[in-house]
């Protein structure tokens, strides 16, 4: 069996590898070490509805963020790729070193506090910003001129944004013609089971994708047992013969090199005790429940507004404008709930390390990376019990019903008040929680996928 790992998403990406791009790259970089000669890479080319053979060297460049592929002839420039001016790149580099920036500005006769500099960074930060050295852009015909030789002994593995970059129906027809096999990574089925928590413009795109992918895929690798259960339920509901399936953990490696060691906590958190909630602000993540719980805690005097803070780290997402306006206008919360976004890995690490505990009240998750992150930092975690979340930390996490703000209020008060209990929890986490590394996660992924292929992999 020859396994071709599809890098169609990473090949388009500019900027830091996050979310699905991160998964695709982390699995992709381990294809050859794990599979050896049986492994390879491919790209899906929409204009011909076919799969192109991607040489290993180019795949490595894509995974490293050094190469970006132009899939169509002509057309507009790829957004963000290599666009930042030299001046902007120098400015960004200096801004990442606040004390250097402060010194340079002093030479110009200007005075900035570190907090003001952090604010400038937040305002100027571009989520799509390129690394200082932008990727090279090459056309697909230049990089991957040959088609993948497809046949019954070919397995295409896809972990990317297939609803954006693939023609699943075209692949279904191609599969019927050539008889290859297809494996898809399934992240979650939230657009199907909780469409009200998905940006409306994406709901139908994703329903269309899920409507087709289980007809196409021979194998599905979910990122949690919960997602796998959801997949089986969906297949049963739609009469789709369920693909052979297993699941694997996501890697939780913490950043090993930090650009900004000299940074400090933002002024609003200095000298404070705080709880951290890392997530995009959007309805599914359920910031409202925490807001209501926190409001109650402050108003009832159960949490000290002078010393305690609730920290939301994440971009403002869709359909939360009212909530954010409420938080800003509410005298009980406007100074005690701190929001931050566009922060670096180093800042995030600093924020986690400074927190007393973490919170995660999400209504549903296919995995729940922030819970794993918080546990990796050794922080006690109070989490919703919805979806896949209990799979991550098991008994090491305190679970609260995401629909019950009063219960969250009680849990927050207890966490601030009972330092001995929180210390006990932190110790237990440090002793028992072992976040899988990406090496381990990839080993599990390929081992389980291989087992599925061996068990079910008769020629389709």
């Amino acid at each position, binding site marked *: 069996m020859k396994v071709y790992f599809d890098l169609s998403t990473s090949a388009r990406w500019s900027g830091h590898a996050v979310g699905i791009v991160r998964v695709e790259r982390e699995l992709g970089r381990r294809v050859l070490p794990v599979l050896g000669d049986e492994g390879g890479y491919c790209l899906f080319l929409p204009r011909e509805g076919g799969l192109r053979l991607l040489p290993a060297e180019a795949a490595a460049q894509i995974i490293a963020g050094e190469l970006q592929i132009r899939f169509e002839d002509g057309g507009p420039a790829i957004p963000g790729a290599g666009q930042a001016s030299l001046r902007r790149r120098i400015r960004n580099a200096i801004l990442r070193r606040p004390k250097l920036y402060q010194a340079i500005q002093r030479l110009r006769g200007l005075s900035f506090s570190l907090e003001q500099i952090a604010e400038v960074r937040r305002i100027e930060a571009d989520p799509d910003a390129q690394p200082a050295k932008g990727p090279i852009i090459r056309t697909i015909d230049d990089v991957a001129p040959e088609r993948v030789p497809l046949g019954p002994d070919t397995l295409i593995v896809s972990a990317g944004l297939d609803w954006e970059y693939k023609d699943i129906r075209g692949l*279904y027809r191609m599969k019927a013609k050539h008889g290859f096999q297809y494996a898809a990574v399934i992240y979650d089925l939230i657009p199907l089971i909780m469409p009200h928590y998905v940006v409306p413009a994406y709901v139908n795109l994703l*329903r*269309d994708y899920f*409507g087709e992918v289980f*007809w196409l895929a021979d194998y599905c690798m979910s990122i949690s047992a919960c997602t796998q259960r959801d997949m089986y339920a969906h297949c049963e*509901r*739609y*009469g789709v013969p369920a693909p052979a399936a297993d699941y694997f953990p996501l890697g939780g490696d913490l950043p090993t090199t930090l650009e900004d060691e000299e940074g400090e906590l933002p002024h609003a958190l200095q000298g404070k005790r705080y709880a951290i909630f890392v997530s995009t602000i959007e309805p599914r993540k359920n910031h409202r429940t925490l807001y209501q719980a926190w409001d109650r805690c402050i108003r009832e005097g159960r949490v000290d507004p002078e010393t305690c803070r609730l920290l939301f780290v994440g971009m403002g997402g869709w359909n939360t404008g009212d909530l954010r306006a409420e938080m800003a206008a509410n005298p009980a919360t406007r100074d005690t709930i701190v929001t931050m976004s566009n922060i670096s890995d180093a800042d995030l690490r600093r924020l986690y390390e400074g927190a007393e505990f973490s919170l995660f009240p999400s209504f549903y998750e296919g995995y729940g990376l922030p819970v794993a992150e918080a546990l990796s930092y050794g922080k006690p975690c109070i989490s919703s019990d919805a979806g896949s979340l209990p799979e991550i930390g098991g008994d090491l996490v305190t679970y609260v019903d995401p629909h019950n703000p009063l219960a969250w209020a009680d849990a927050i008060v207890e966490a601030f008040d009972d330092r001995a209990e929180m210390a006990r929890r932190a110790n237990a986490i440090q002793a028992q929680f072992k976040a899988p590394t990406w090496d381990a996660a990839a080993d599990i992924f390929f081992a389980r996928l291989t087992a599925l292929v061996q068990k079910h992999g008769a020629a389709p």
Partner: protein
Amino acid sequence: MKILALSTYPVARPRHGGQKRVHALKALYQRLGADLHVAAVHDPSYAKEDVGPHDIVLGHGSATWADTPFMGDLQSGEFAANSPAAYRHFESLVRTLQPDAFTLEQPFMWPLIRRLKENGVAADVPVIYSSHNWEAPLKEAILIRAGVSRPKAKAIAAAIVALEQDAVDGADLVLTVSDSDLAIYRALAPGKLIAVAPNGVDLPSDAPGRSAILDPYEGRKFLFYVGSSYPPNIEGFVKLVCEDGFFFTPPLKSFAVCGGVCDQIFQSDAYQRFVHANSERVQFFPNTTDEDLDVLKAATHGVVLPIQFGGGSNLKTAEALVSEKWVVATPTAMRGFERFIGAAGVLIAETPDQFRAAMIQALRNPPLQLSGQDRAARRAVTWERAFREGGAEEVLRTFLASRTAGAAIGAL
């Protein structure tokens, strides 16, 4: 014996349910020794070959409901009675034909009969009111769904109730399509002679030849739906079948949608939402020939009847049953055929989820094999047996015989 049928559509080439019922009644009258002549006021959409010698096109005679959709039937009756040219046409026809009875197909042409009687043109000609369903609630529902204000829809429905009351009062015999309609008309006119003439179907032709029309299916199972461009036919399919897309089948042709419903189903928001996915699975046949339609019916794995509202009983249900295929139907679609709920090969579903589950179940099943008893039960829905076993044939025979005898006595 000559009978003049008055309707709001021609029946020379029966395609939709109402036309087929009139066509079947014509055969029944023939068996009973009477010739049925049809005269219709119809909308201009019919082709030349659809129209009979006594039919006329609805003109601009009635402006009463000019701003309201789906009012052609009421307008036709008003037009026939009140447009001088139209009335002259029918008056002349009656004087020439000298019918022994009128049969009023649906109530809408009643104003014409009333005027013919009032003017002495047909004062003593008996009237058979041939109901196709209890019209007012259906019309009200259609109008409201079409965006007509509720007060206006209710007012129109009330006018139809009054019209039906007049027609029933003026009729000598009432034919209904179901027991439930029978109860309604009994309440309207206690003591009136009323018989049930259930809807039925012609037996499918034996083993129609294979046709290129089946090519998209490449020998796979597919489900079949046919309907005219009539709101209940469109809305039920859109709501119960299209709403979540056709993802319950692989992206290969697995649905045949036929007839006047095609355009509006294709254009519906629900279909367009996943148009690319749906188009992989659905083949539309908006203008297929009767022969090809027979080929599709014979080759299909199952027939869907996603009807959520409407009156009377559903001819498509009878056709589905007699096809001896799997049937996926709403309880509404089974009106008049309630005895088949729970019968072999009949899957009943009411909500979109239930309907999808039933279609999946049907597609998973092997081709339907009916026992001899079940097959015989399904074949009992032919027009001939429906009229005979429903009792209408005997009632009509007696009625016509009494009229013949009466006429003979009168002639003495």
